[in-house]
């Protein structure tokens, strides 16, 4: 690719990314009343999206080969127990991450 072609390619990526982020705001501007269906989706979607993001983070793990995603599963188990118990975001995230780092460095 020439420099110009590279700039065009990066420009397209920027434009489409902004498009995916902005389209809902263009379709449902502040001045007008947001349709009831979109208001409903705005409330019903987040839990499903959070679940989807968790799976998205784990998409490259394999349950059937290698370490069977055990470091991931054990660390998520620890995060779940700690978070339900203490409800402290930083404690849960830090412990889970350290647990994962220790497991991948020393155990698996």
């Amino acid at each position: 690719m020439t420099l110009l072609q590279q700039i065009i390619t990066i420009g397209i990526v920027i434009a489409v990314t902004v498009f995916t982020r902005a389209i809902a705001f263009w379709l449902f501007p502040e001045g007008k009343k947001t349709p009831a269906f979109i208001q409903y989706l705005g409330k019903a979607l987040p839990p499903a999206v959070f679940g989807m993001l968790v799976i998205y983070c784990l998409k490259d793990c394999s349950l059937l080969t290698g370490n069977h995603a055990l470091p991931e599963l054990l660390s998520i188990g620890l995060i779940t127990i700690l978070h339900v118990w203490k409800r402290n975001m930083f404690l849960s995230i830090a412990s889970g991450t350290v647990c994962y780092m220790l497991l991948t460095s020393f155990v698996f």
Partner: protein
Amino acid sequence: MIRKAFKTAFPYTIPILTGFLFLGISYGIYMRALGFSALYPIFMSMLIFAGSMEFVTASMLLSGFNPVGAALLTLMVNARHIFYGITMVSKYKNVGKKKWYLIFGMCDESFSINCSVDVPEGVDKGWFYFWVTVLNQSYWVLGATCGALLGSLLTFDTNGLAFVMTALFVVIFLDSWLKEKKHFSSLLGLGVSVLCLVLFGAEKFLVPAMCVIFLVLSLAKPFLEKEVA
């Protein structure tokens, strides 16, 4: 007002500080290793600001010029942002001109924090959202810049540090789970994503998963409406 919002917002971004610095540095080093000048990761992290897409763009730049393919691939990888937009339409109301930056900077992490945190009484919501977004983007750009400029000097044992991002999303998911009365949407998101991942594979599962989630939630509106009101 602006300061207070900053002080409230900053702690929520600390996990992202860790994750983005690490991933940003990796991205900077990766770009240099592919033979790009340091300007590429610096400007791409600043202007594209969509982590996984920046890695994908790097490999696009190394293959033949294909603008239509680039647009379609970006649309597929980033389609999940359409959901973020639908969710934030009402939250990002009445925040003034900051709104345009909030939309531009709406990455997975900024969306998740701004969508899930109940901004405390007395803290300006618009500025809280703004600081979360600005801080997250600065961590990413700073990481990418450091990786691009100093990559060869950095050797540290950070094996597994990227898991901090997974941990963040797990905690946000749990928080939302613990707050809700019924878990239909949470379970739907997990279940459909796992199913589509098995059926379509890691590279292609997001778009079908989003379509199924959208369809099921639309059909379930009469039953769910009272739950989420």
